[in-house]
Protein backbone atom coordinates (compact mmCIF):
# COMPACT_ATOMS: atom_id res chain seq x y z
CA UNK A 1 0.00 0.00 0.00
CA UNK A 2 1.52 3.33 -1.00
CA UNK A 3 -1.45 5.52 -0.19
CA UNK A 4 -2.06 6.48 3.40
CA UNK A 5 -5.64 5.65 4.19
CA UNK A 6 -5.79 8.30 6.88
CA UNK A 7 -4.45 11.48 5.32
CA UNK A 8 -5.64 13.38 2.27
CA UNK A 9 -4.56 11.41 -0.79
CA UNK A 10 -3.85 13.03 -4.19
CA UNK A 11 -3.89 9.52 -5.66
CA UNK A 12 -7.53 9.03 -4.69
CA UNK A 13 -8.32 12.45 -6.15
CA UNK A 14 -6.58 11.36 -9.35
CA UNK A 15 -8.62 8.14 -9.34
CA UNK A 16 -11.87 10.09 -9.33
CA UNK A 17 -10.69 12.54 -11.99
CA UNK A 18 -9.67 9.56 -14.12
CA UNK A 19 -13.09 8.00 -13.59
CA UNK A 20 -14.83 11.14 -14.91
CA UNK A 21 -12.36 11.53 -17.73
CA UNK A 22 -13.04 7.96 -18.87
CA UNK A 23 -16.75 8.75 -18.80
CA UNK A 24 -16.42 11.97 -20.83
CA UNK A 25 -14.12 10.31 -23.33
CA UNK A 26 -16.54 7.45 -23.89
CA UNK A 27 -19.55 9.62 -24.66
CA UNK A 28 -19.57 12.14 -27.53
CA UNK A 29 -23.07 13.47 -26.62
CA UNK A 30 -21.67 14.53 -23.24
CA UNK A 31 -18.84 16.39 -24.99
CA UNK A 32 -21.17 18.08 -27.50
CA UNK A 33 -23.52 19.16 -24.72
CA UNK A 34 -20.63 20.97 -23.03
CA UNK A 35 -20.18 23.25 -26.05
CA UNK A 36 -23.72 23.46 -27.42
CA UNK A 37 -25.58 25.75 -24.98
CA UNK A 38 -22.74 28.18 -24.29
CA UNK A 39 -22.34 28.63 -28.04
CA UNK A 40 -26.05 29.25 -28.59
CA UNK A 41 -26.16 31.73 -25.70
CA UNK A 42 -23.10 33.63 -26.80
CA UNK A 43 -24.31 33.93 -30.39
CA UNK A 44 -27.78 35.09 -29.33
CA UNK A 45 -26.50 37.76 -26.94
CA UNK A 46 -23.74 38.74 -29.36
CA UNK A 47 -26.16 39.47 -32.20
CA UNK A 48 -28.49 41.29 -29.80
CA UNK A 49 -25.57 43.43 -28.71
CA UNK A 50 -24.74 44.19 -32.34
CA UNK A 51 -28.31 45.25 -33.03
CA UNK A 52 -28.62 47.45 -29.94
CA UNK A 53 -25.16 48.91 -30.50
CA UNK A 54 -26.19 50.07 -33.97
CA UNK A 55 -29.17 51.92 -32.51
CA UNK A 56 -27.95 53.35 -29.20
CA UNK A 57 -24.79 55.32 -28.61
CA UNK A 58 -24.30 54.09 -25.02
CA UNK A 59 -24.28 50.46 -26.07
CA UNK A 60 -22.08 51.28 -29.03
CA UNK A 61 -19.57 52.68 -26.51
CA UNK A 62 -20.00 49.69 -24.21
CA UNK A 63 -19.24 47.23 -26.97
CA UNK A 64 -18.84 43.67 -25.71
CA UNK A 65 -20.61 44.16 -22.37
CA UNK A 66 -23.38 41.70 -23.19
CA UNK A 67 -21.02 39.11 -24.65
CA UNK A 68 -18.66 39.53 -21.72
CA UNK A 69 -21.58 39.17 -19.32
CA UNK A 70 -22.92 36.04 -20.97
CA UNK A 71 -19.49 34.40 -21.05
CA UNK A 72 -18.84 35.23 -17.39
CA UNK A 73 -22.33 34.04 -16.49
CA UNK A 74 -21.60 30.78 -18.28
CA UNK A 75 -18.39 30.39 -16.28
CA UNK A 76 -20.50 30.69 -13.11
CA UNK A 77 -23.36 28.51 -14.32
CA UNK A 78 -21.34 25.88 -16.20
CA UNK A 79 -18.80 25.72 -13.39
CA UNK A 80 -21.55 24.71 -10.98
CA UNK A 81 -23.14 22.36 -13.51
CA UNK A 82 -19.77 20.74 -14.20
CA UNK A 83 -19.39 20.06 -10.50
CA UNK A 84 -22.97 18.89 -9.97
CA UNK A 85 -23.27 16.76 -13.11
CA UNK A 86 -20.09 14.86 -12.28
CA UNK A 87 -21.59 14.18 -8.87
CA UNK A 88 -24.98 13.22 -10.32
CA UNK A 89 -23.24 10.73 -12.65
CA UNK A 90 -22.52 8.69 -9.50
CA UNK A 91 -26.19 8.74 -8.58
CA UNK A 92 -27.28 7.74 -12.09
CA UNK A 93 -24.67 4.95 -12.15
CA UNK A 94 -25.70 3.75 -8.64
CA UNK A 95 -22.02 3.95 -7.80
CA UNK A 96 -22.21 6.27 -4.80
CA UNK A 97 -22.42 3.32 -2.38
CA UNK A 98 -19.16 1.94 -3.76
CA UNK A 99 -17.50 5.32 -3.21
CA UNK A 100 -18.98 5.98 0.22
CA UNK A 101 -17.71 2.61 1.45
CA UNK A 102 -14.28 3.04 -0.10
CA UNK A 103 -11.38 4.90 1.53
CA UNK A 104 -12.28 8.00 -0.52
CA UNK A 105 -12.71 10.96 1.82
CA UNK A 106 -15.27 13.73 1.33
CA UNK A 107 -12.50 16.31 0.85
CA UNK A 108 -10.91 14.18 -1.90
CA UNK A 109 -14.24 13.66 -3.63
CA UNK A 110 -14.94 17.41 -3.54
CA UNK A 111 -11.47 18.20 -4.92
CA UNK A 112 -12.02 15.79 -7.81
CA UNK A 113 -15.39 17.39 -8.57
CA UNK A 114 -13.78 20.85 -8.52
CA UNK A 115 -11.10 19.71 -10.95
CA UNK A 116 -13.74 18.20 -13.22
CA UNK A 117 -15.75 21.41 -13.17
CA UNK A 118 -12.68 23.21 -14.58
CA UNK A 119 -12.04 20.46 -17.13
CA UNK A 120 -15.66 20.55 -18.33
CA UNK A 121 -15.61 24.34 -18.34
CA UNK A 122 -12.47 24.39 -20.45
CA UNK A 123 -13.94 21.95 -22.96
CA UNK A 124 -17.12 24.01 -23.22
CA UNK A 125 -15.91 27.58 -22.94
CA UNK A 126 -12.62 27.76 -24.82
CA UNK A 127 -14.31 27.14 -28.21
CA UNK A 128 -17.01 29.68 -27.30
CA UNK A 129 -14.49 32.38 -26.45
CA UNK A 130 -12.74 31.75 -29.77
CA UNK A 131 -16.06 31.99 -31.61
CA UNK A 132 -16.71 35.32 -29.83
CA UNK A 133 -13.49 36.64 -31.38
CA UNK A 134 -14.42 35.31 -34.79
CA UNK A 135 -18.02 36.57 -34.84
CA UNK A 136 -17.92 39.77 -32.79
CA UNK A 137 -14.26 40.67 -32.38
CA UNK A 138 -14.64 40.21 -28.63
CA UNK A 139 -11.46 38.87 -27.06
CA UNK A 140 -12.14 37.74 -23.50
CA UNK A 141 -8.46 37.02 -22.99
CA UNK A 142 -7.74 40.70 -23.68
CA UNK A 143 -9.06 41.38 -20.18
CA UNK A 144 -5.75 40.00 -18.92
CA UNK A 145 -5.30 39.76 -15.17
CA UNK A 146 -8.81 41.07 -14.58
CA UNK A 147 -10.12 37.94 -16.27
CA UNK A 148 -8.15 35.81 -13.81
CA UNK A 149 -9.75 37.69 -10.91
CA UNK A 150 -13.22 37.38 -12.44
CA UNK A 151 -12.70 33.69 -13.15
CA UNK A 152 -11.36 32.85 -9.69
CA UNK A 153 -14.28 34.51 -7.96
CA UNK A 154 -16.93 33.01 -10.23
CA UNK A 155 -15.54 29.48 -10.04
CA UNK A 156 -15.33 29.71 -6.25
CA UNK A 157 -19.02 30.64 -6.09
CA UNK A 158 -19.92 27.84 -8.52
CA UNK A 159 -18.06 25.28 -6.38
CA UNK A 160 -19.78 26.47 -3.21
CA UNK A 161 -23.20 26.08 -4.81
CA UNK A 162 -22.16 22.70 -6.29
CA UNK A 163 -21.00 21.42 -2.90
CA UNK A 164 -24.23 22.50 -1.22
CA UNK A 165 -26.41 20.94 -3.93
CA UNK A 166 -24.44 17.66 -3.75
CA UNK A 167 -25.12 17.56 -0.03
CA UNK A 168 -28.82 18.13 -0.68
CA UNK A 169 -28.89 15.25 -3.17
CA UNK A 170 -27.05 12.91 -0.79
CA UNK A 171 -29.50 13.81 1.97
CA UNK A 172 -32.70 13.78 -0.11
CA UNK A 173 -31.95 11.51 -3.06
CA UNK A 174 -32.49 12.26 -6.72
CA UNK A 175 -35.68 14.14 -5.83
CA UNK A 176 -33.36 17.06 -5.07
CA UNK A 177 -31.66 16.79 -8.47
CA UNK A 178 -33.70 19.70 -9.81
CA UNK A 179 -31.69 22.07 -7.59
CA UNK A 180 -28.56 21.12 -9.50
CA UNK A 181 -30.10 22.46 -12.70
CA UNK A 182 -32.03 25.42 -11.37
CA UNK A 183 -30.50 26.87 -8.21
CA UNK A 184 -28.07 29.11 -10.09
CA UNK A 185 -30.94 30.83 -11.91
CA UNK A 186 -31.95 32.30 -8.57
CA UNK A 187 -28.72 34.30 -8.79
CA UNK A 188 -29.31 35.47 -12.36
CA UNK A 189 -31.56 38.46 -11.53
CA UNK A 190 -29.92 39.19 -8.18
CA UNK A 191 -26.28 39.06 -9.27
CA UNK A 192 -27.02 41.74 -11.89
CA UNK A 193 -25.41 39.91 -14.76
CA UNK A 194 -26.74 42.15 -17.54
CA UNK A 195 -27.51 45.42 -15.69
CA UNK A 196 -26.00 47.49 -12.89
CA UNK A 197 -26.97 46.97 -9.25
CA UNK A 198 -28.38 50.51 -9.20
CA UNK A 199 -31.29 49.29 -11.34
CA UNK A 200 -32.61 47.12 -8.48
CA UNK A 201 -34.97 48.41 -5.79
CA UNK A 202 -33.20 49.33 -2.54
CA UNK A 203 -33.93 46.15 -0.56
CA UNK A 204 -32.83 43.94 -3.44
CA UNK A 205 -29.60 45.90 -3.78
CA UNK A 206 -28.77 44.89 -0.21
CA UNK A 207 -29.38 41.25 -1.17
CA UNK A 208 -27.37 41.59 -4.37
CA UNK A 209 -24.33 42.86 -2.49
CA UNK A 210 -24.35 39.70 -0.40
CA UNK A 211 -23.60 37.66 -3.52
CA UNK A 212 -19.98 37.40 -4.71
CA UNK A 213 -20.88 37.31 -8.44
CA UNK A 214 -22.52 40.76 -8.16
CA UNK A 215 -19.07 42.24 -7.52
CA UNK A 216 -17.64 40.43 -10.52
CA UNK A 217 -20.30 41.66 -12.92
CA UNK A 218 -20.05 45.20 -11.58
CA UNK A 219 -16.30 44.92 -11.94
CA UNK A 220 -16.66 43.72 -15.51
CA UNK A 221 -18.86 46.68 -16.42
CA UNK A 222 -16.43 49.09 -14.75
CA UNK A 223 -13.62 47.62 -16.83
CA UNK A 224 -15.44 47.50 -20.14
CA UNK A 225 -17.37 50.77 -19.94
CA UNK A 226 -15.08 52.97 -17.83
CA UNK A 227 -11.82 51.09 -18.43
CA UNK A 228 -11.22 50.87 -14.68
CA UNK A 229 -10.20 47.66 -12.89
CA UNK A 230 -11.92 47.66 -9.50
CA UNK A 231 -9.58 45.61 -7.31
CA UNK A 232 -11.68 46.58 -4.29
CA UNK A 233 -14.70 44.80 -5.76
CA UNK A 234 -12.65 41.68 -6.43
CA UNK A 235 -11.28 41.66 -2.88
CA UNK A 236 -14.79 41.98 -1.46
CA UNK A 237 -16.00 39.15 -3.72
CA UNK A 238 -13.11 36.98 -2.56
CA UNK A 239 -13.94 37.63 1.09
CA UNK A 240 -17.57 36.68 0.55
CA UNK A 241 -16.51 33.63 -1.47
CA UNK A 242 -14.35 32.35 1.37
CA UNK A 243 -17.31 32.66 3.75
CA UNK A 244 -19.64 31.00 1.22
CA UNK A 245 -17.21 28.13 0.54
CA UNK A 246 -16.70 27.38 4.24
CA UNK A 247 -20.48 27.51 4.80
CA UNK A 248 -21.05 25.13 1.86
CA UNK A 249 -18.49 22.62 3.17
CA UNK A 250 -20.04 22.74 6.65
CA UNK A 251 -23.53 22.30 5.16
CA UNK A 252 -22.27 19.37 3.04
CA UNK A 253 -20.82 17.64 6.10
CA UNK A 254 -24.01 18.18 8.10
CA UNK A 255 -26.16 16.87 5.23
CA UNK A 256 -23.97 13.77 4.76
CA UNK A 257 -23.95 13.08 8.50
CA UNK A 258 -27.74 13.46 8.59
CA UNK A 259 -27.99 11.05 5.65
CA UNK A 260 -25.82 8.55 7.55
CA UNK A 261 -27.92 9.03 10.67
CA UNK A 262 -31.16 8.49 8.80
CA UNK A 263 -29.98 5.64 6.63
CA UNK A 264 -30.56 7.69 3.50
CA UNK A 265 -27.40 6.31 1.87
CA UNK A 266 -29.03 2.89 1.76
CA UNK A 267 -31.75 4.17 -0.56
CA UNK A 268 -30.03 6.32 -3.10
CA UNK A 269 -32.98 6.52 -5.44
CA UNK A 270 -35.75 9.01 -5.93
Amino acid at each position, binding site marked *: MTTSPITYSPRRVAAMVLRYWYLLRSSWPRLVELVYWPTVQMLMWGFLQLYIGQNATFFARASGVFIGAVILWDILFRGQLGFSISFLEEMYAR*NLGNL*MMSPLRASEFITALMIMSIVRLAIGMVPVTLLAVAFFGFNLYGLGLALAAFFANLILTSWSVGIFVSGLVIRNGLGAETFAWSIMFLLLPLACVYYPVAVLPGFLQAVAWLLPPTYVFEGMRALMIDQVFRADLMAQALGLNVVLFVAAVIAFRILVDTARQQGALLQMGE
Partner: protein
Amino acid sequence: MPAAPAIVVDHLVKAYRNVIAVDDISFSLAPGSITGLLGGNGAGKTTTIAMIMGLVIPTSGVVTVLGIDIARHRHRVLHRMNFESPYVEMPMRLTIRQNLKVFGMLYGVDDIAGRIAQIAAELELIDLLDRPTGKLSAGQKTRVSLAKALINRPEVLLLDEPTASLDPDTADWVRGHLDRYRRERGATLLIASHNMTEVERLCERVIIMKGGRIEDDDTPQSLLARYGRHTLEEVFLDVARGRRAAWVAAQ
Protein backbone atom coordinates in the same frame (compact mmCIF):
# COMPACT_ATOMS: atom_id res chain seq x y z
CA MET B 1 -3.92 -16.50 23.29
CA PRO B 2 -6.82 -16.44 20.80
CA ALA B 3 -6.60 -13.87 18.01
CA ALA B 4 -8.64 -10.68 18.46
CA PRO B 5 -12.01 -10.78 16.68
CA ALA B 6 -12.06 -9.31 13.17
CA ILE B 7 -15.49 -7.76 13.76
CA VAL B 8 -17.13 -6.91 17.07
CA VAL B 9 -20.73 -5.73 17.16
CA ASP B 10 -21.59 -4.60 20.68
CA HIS B 11 -25.19 -3.79 21.70
CA LEU B 12 -25.90 -2.23 18.34
CA VAL B 13 -29.17 -0.34 17.91
CA LYS B 14 -30.51 1.55 14.92
CA ALA B 15 -33.79 3.35 15.43
CA TYR B 16 -35.51 5.50 12.85
CA ARG B 17 -38.42 7.75 13.75
CA ASN B 18 -41.01 5.02 14.33
CA VAL B 19 -39.05 1.90 13.53
CA ILE B 20 -36.31 -0.01 15.28
CA ALA B 21 -34.38 -1.54 12.41
CA VAL B 22 -31.69 -3.17 14.57
CA ASP B 23 -32.48 -3.86 18.20
CA ASP B 24 -29.56 -4.37 20.55
CA ILE B 25 -27.56 -7.03 18.73
CA SER B 26 -24.13 -8.26 19.73
CA PHE B 27 -21.76 -10.72 18.09
CA SER B 28 -18.12 -11.06 17.21
CA LEU B 29 -16.49 -12.79 14.26
CA ALA B 30 -13.20 -14.62 14.54
CA PRO B 31 -10.50 -13.81 11.98
CA GLY B 32 -10.66 -16.13 8.99
CA SER B 33 -14.23 -17.18 9.74
CA ILE B 34 -17.15 -17.18 7.34
CA THR B 35 -20.52 -16.29 8.80
CA GLY B 36 -23.98 -16.10 7.29
CA LEU B 37 -26.42 -13.41 8.31
CA LEU B 38 -29.86 -14.81 7.63
CA GLY B 39 -33.21 -13.14 7.84
CA GLY B 40 -36.32 -12.22 5.93
CA ASN B 41 -37.02 -8.86 4.34
CA GLY B 42 -36.78 -6.12 6.98
CA ALA B 43 -34.93 -8.34 9.43
CA GLY B 44 -32.12 -5.78 9.71
CA LYS B 45 -29.36 -7.56 7.77
CA THR B 46 -28.57 -4.78 5.32
CA THR B 47 -28.72 -2.11 8.04
CA THR B 48 -26.33 -4.19 10.16
CA ILE B 49 -23.87 -4.53 7.28
CA ALA B 50 -24.22 -0.82 6.49
CA MET B 51 -23.36 0.02 10.11
CA ILE B 52 -20.34 -2.29 9.98
CA MET B 53 -19.17 -0.37 6.88
CA GLY B 54 -19.92 2.98 8.53
CA LEU B 55 -22.52 3.91 5.94
CA VAL B 56 -25.18 4.20 8.63
CA ILE B 57 -24.46 5.67 12.07
CA PRO B 58 -25.82 3.53 14.93
CA THR B 59 -28.27 5.04 17.39
CA SER B 60 -26.26 3.34 20.12
CA GLY B 61 -23.70 0.58 20.44
CA VAL B 62 -20.28 0.13 18.92
CA VAL B 63 -18.86 -1.62 15.87
CA THR B 64 -15.16 -2.33 15.70
CA VAL B 65 -13.48 -3.81 12.65
CA LEU B 66 -9.90 -5.06 12.97
CA GLY B 67 -9.78 -3.20 16.29
CA ILE B 68 -10.94 0.15 14.89
CA ASP B 69 -14.11 1.93 16.05
CA ILE B 70 -15.97 2.33 12.78
CA ALA B 71 -18.23 5.22 13.80
CA ARG B 72 -15.22 7.33 14.79
CA HIS B 73 -12.28 6.20 12.70
CA ARG B 74 -13.62 4.30 9.68
CA HIS B 75 -10.96 5.75 7.36
CA ARG B 76 -8.27 3.94 9.32
CA VAL B 77 -9.63 0.58 8.28
CA LEU B 78 -11.69 0.97 5.08
CA HIS B 79 -8.67 0.14 2.91
CA ARG B 80 -8.50 -3.27 4.63
CA MET B 81 -12.17 -4.02 3.97
CA ASN B 82 -14.41 -4.28 0.95
CA PHE B 83 -17.94 -5.22 0.08
CA GLU B 84 -20.18 -6.42 -2.68
CA SER B 85 -23.89 -5.89 -3.09
CA PRO B 86 -26.33 -6.21 -5.96
CA TYR B 87 -27.83 -2.88 -4.84
CA VAL B 88 -24.84 -0.87 -6.00
CA GLU B 89 -23.33 -1.04 -9.46
CA MET B 90 -20.12 -0.23 -11.24
CA PRO B 91 -20.19 2.69 -13.74
CA MET B 92 -21.67 1.20 -16.91
CA ARG B 93 -19.80 3.16 -19.56
CA LEU B 94 -16.38 2.38 -18.16
CA THR B 95 -14.69 -0.80 -19.22
CA ILE B 96 -13.92 -3.44 -16.63
CA ARG B 97 -10.23 -2.51 -16.77
CA GLN B 98 -11.01 1.19 -16.24
CA ASN B 99 -13.33 0.45 -13.31
CA LEU B 100 -10.81 -1.82 -11.65
CA LYS B 101 -8.05 0.73 -12.17
CA VAL B 102 -10.14 3.47 -10.53
CA PHE B 103 -11.04 1.29 -7.55
CA GLY B 104 -7.48 -0.01 -7.31
CA MET B 105 -6.30 3.59 -6.97
CA LEU B 106 -9.02 4.39 -4.43
CA TYR B 107 -8.00 1.42 -2.30
CA GLY B 108 -4.29 2.20 -2.58
CA VAL B 109 -3.34 -0.96 -4.47
CA ASP B 110 0.28 -1.21 -5.64
CA ASP B 111 0.99 -2.48 -9.17
CA ILE B 112 -2.60 -2.07 -10.26
CA ALA B 113 -2.00 -3.46 -13.74
CA GLY B 114 -0.53 -6.63 -12.25
CA ARG B 115 -3.34 -6.97 -9.75
CA ILE B 116 -5.98 -6.48 -12.48
CA ALA B 117 -4.33 -9.17 -14.61
CA GLN B 118 -4.21 -11.52 -11.64
CA ILE B 119 -7.77 -11.03 -10.53
CA ALA B 120 -9.09 -11.12 -14.10
CA ALA B 121 -7.41 -14.50 -14.51
CA GLU B 122 -8.88 -15.78 -11.25
CA LEU B 123 -12.38 -14.60 -12.11
CA GLU B 124 -12.18 -15.52 -15.81
CA LEU B 125 -12.52 -11.92 -16.96
CA ILE B 126 -9.43 -11.60 -19.15
CA ASP B 127 -11.29 -11.60 -22.46
CA LEU B 128 -13.81 -9.09 -21.13
CA LEU B 129 -11.43 -6.54 -19.63
CA ASP B 130 -11.89 -3.93 -22.36
CA ARG B 131 -15.64 -4.31 -22.65
CA PRO B 132 -17.95 -1.65 -21.13
CA THR B 133 -19.35 -2.91 -17.85
CA GLY B 134 -22.89 -2.10 -18.94
CA LYS B 135 -22.68 -4.57 -21.81
CA LEU B 136 -22.10 -7.61 -19.62
CA SER B 137 -24.53 -10.34 -18.61
CA ALA B 138 -25.77 -10.51 -14.99
CA GLY B 139 -23.28 -13.27 -14.20
CA GLN B 140 -20.39 -11.35 -15.73
CA LYS B 141 -21.39 -8.21 -13.82
CA THR B 142 -21.39 -10.17 -10.58
CA ARG B 143 -17.88 -11.39 -11.31
CA VAL B 144 -16.80 -7.79 -11.99
CA SER B 145 -18.35 -6.66 -8.67
CA LEU B 146 -16.48 -9.48 -7.01
CA ALA B 147 -13.25 -8.38 -8.71
CA LYS B 148 -13.82 -4.88 -7.33
CA ALA B 149 -14.53 -6.33 -3.88
CA LEU B 150 -11.27 -8.30 -3.97
CA ILE B 151 -9.06 -5.72 -5.71
CA ASN B 152 -7.39 -4.71 -2.42
CA ARG B 153 -7.15 -8.26 -1.03
CA PRO B 154 -9.43 -7.31 1.88
CA GLU B 155 -9.01 -8.85 5.30
CA VAL B 156 -12.71 -8.30 5.95
CA LEU B 157 -15.22 -8.86 3.17
CA LEU B 158 -18.91 -8.03 3.55
CA LEU B 159 -21.26 -9.51 1.00
CA ASP B 160 -24.92 -8.62 0.64
CA GLU B 161 -26.75 -11.26 -1.43
CA PRO B 162 -23.63 -12.15 -3.43
CA THR B 163 -25.42 -14.57 -5.73
CA ALA B 164 -28.79 -12.83 -6.10
CA SER B 165 -30.22 -13.22 -9.63
CA LEU B 166 -27.50 -15.62 -10.75
CA ASP B 167 -28.14 -18.97 -12.40
CA PRO B 168 -27.26 -21.98 -10.21
CA ASP B 169 -24.04 -22.73 -12.11
CA THR B 170 -22.66 -19.18 -11.82
CA ALA B 171 -23.83 -18.92 -8.21
CA ASP B 172 -22.00 -22.13 -7.36
CA TRP B 173 -18.88 -20.86 -9.09
CA VAL B 174 -19.00 -17.59 -7.11
CA ARG B 175 -19.42 -19.50 -3.83
CA GLY B 176 -16.45 -21.68 -4.67
CA HIS B 177 -14.30 -18.66 -5.40
CA LEU B 178 -15.28 -16.93 -2.15
CA ASP B 179 -14.44 -20.02 -0.16
CA ARG B 180 -11.04 -20.33 -1.87
CA TYR B 181 -10.28 -16.67 -1.27
CA ARG B 182 -11.15 -16.97 2.41
CA ARG B 183 -8.91 -20.02 2.85
CA GLU B 184 -5.95 -18.57 0.95
CA ARG B 185 -6.10 -15.06 2.42
CA GLY B 186 -7.34 -15.94 5.89
CA ALA B 187 -10.01 -13.32 5.38
CA THR B 188 -13.14 -12.86 7.47
CA LEU B 189 -16.37 -13.02 5.47
CA LEU B 190 -19.84 -11.94 6.54
CA ILE B 191 -22.56 -12.87 4.07
CA ALA B 192 -26.11 -11.52 4.25
CA SER B 193 -28.33 -13.82 2.28
CA HIS B 194 -31.77 -15.26 1.66
CA ASN B 195 -30.19 -18.24 -0.01
CA MET B 196 -30.13 -21.11 2.46
CA THR B 197 -28.18 -23.42 0.17
CA GLU B 198 -25.49 -20.81 -0.08
CA VAL B 199 -25.30 -20.31 3.66
CA GLU B 200 -25.37 -24.05 4.32
CA ARG B 201 -22.56 -24.68 1.88
CA LEU B 202 -20.30 -21.75 2.74
CA CYS B 203 -20.80 -20.73 6.33
CA GLU B 204 -19.39 -22.27 9.46
CA ARG B 205 -21.68 -20.09 11.56
CA VAL B 206 -25.16 -18.70 11.02
CA ILE B 207 -26.73 -15.67 12.69
CA ILE B 208 -30.47 -15.56 12.15
CA MET B 209 -32.15 -12.15 12.48
CA LYS B 210 -35.81 -11.32 12.78
CA GLY B 211 -37.38 -7.94 13.48
CA GLY B 212 -33.97 -6.38 14.09
CA ARG B 213 -32.97 -8.91 16.76
CA ILE B 214 -30.77 -11.99 16.72
CA GLU B 215 -33.06 -14.99 17.00
CA ASP B 216 -30.38 -17.63 16.86
CA ASP B 217 -26.64 -17.95 16.40
CA ASP B 218 -24.85 -21.25 15.91
CA THR B 219 -23.18 -23.60 13.44
CA PRO B 220 -25.45 -24.94 10.68
CA GLN B 221 -25.10 -28.47 12.07
CA SER B 222 -26.09 -27.42 15.59
CA LEU B 223 -29.07 -25.45 14.29
CA LEU B 224 -30.28 -28.43 12.26
CA ALA B 225 -29.90 -30.75 15.24
CA ARG B 226 -31.50 -28.34 17.69
CA TYR B 227 -34.56 -27.67 15.54
CA GLY B 228 -34.77 -31.27 14.41
CA ARG B 229 -34.70 -30.22 10.77
CA HIS B 230 -32.90 -31.46 7.66
CA THR B 231 -32.26 -28.12 5.98
CA LEU B 232 -31.51 -24.56 7.02
CA GLU B 233 -34.52 -23.49 5.00
CA GLU B 234 -36.75 -25.39 7.39
CA VAL B 235 -34.94 -23.84 10.35
CA PHE B 236 -35.33 -20.40 8.78
CA LEU B 237 -39.08 -20.97 8.30
CA ASP B 238 -39.40 -22.09 11.91
CA VAL B 239 -37.77 -18.87 13.05
CA ALA B 240 -39.60 -16.64 10.56
CA ARG B 241 -43.00 -18.06 11.50
CA GLY B 242 -42.40 -17.93 15.23
CA ARG B 243 -42.20 -21.68 15.72
CA ARG B 244 -38.97 -21.22 17.66
CA ALA B 245 -40.93 -19.80 20.57
CA ALA B 246 -43.11 -22.89 20.62
CA TRP B 247 -40.00 -25.06 20.41
CA VAL B 248 -38.39 -23.26 23.34
CA ALA B 249 -41.59 -23.63 25.39
CA ALA B 250 -41.71 -27.34 24.61
CA GLN B 251 -38.16 -27.73 25.85
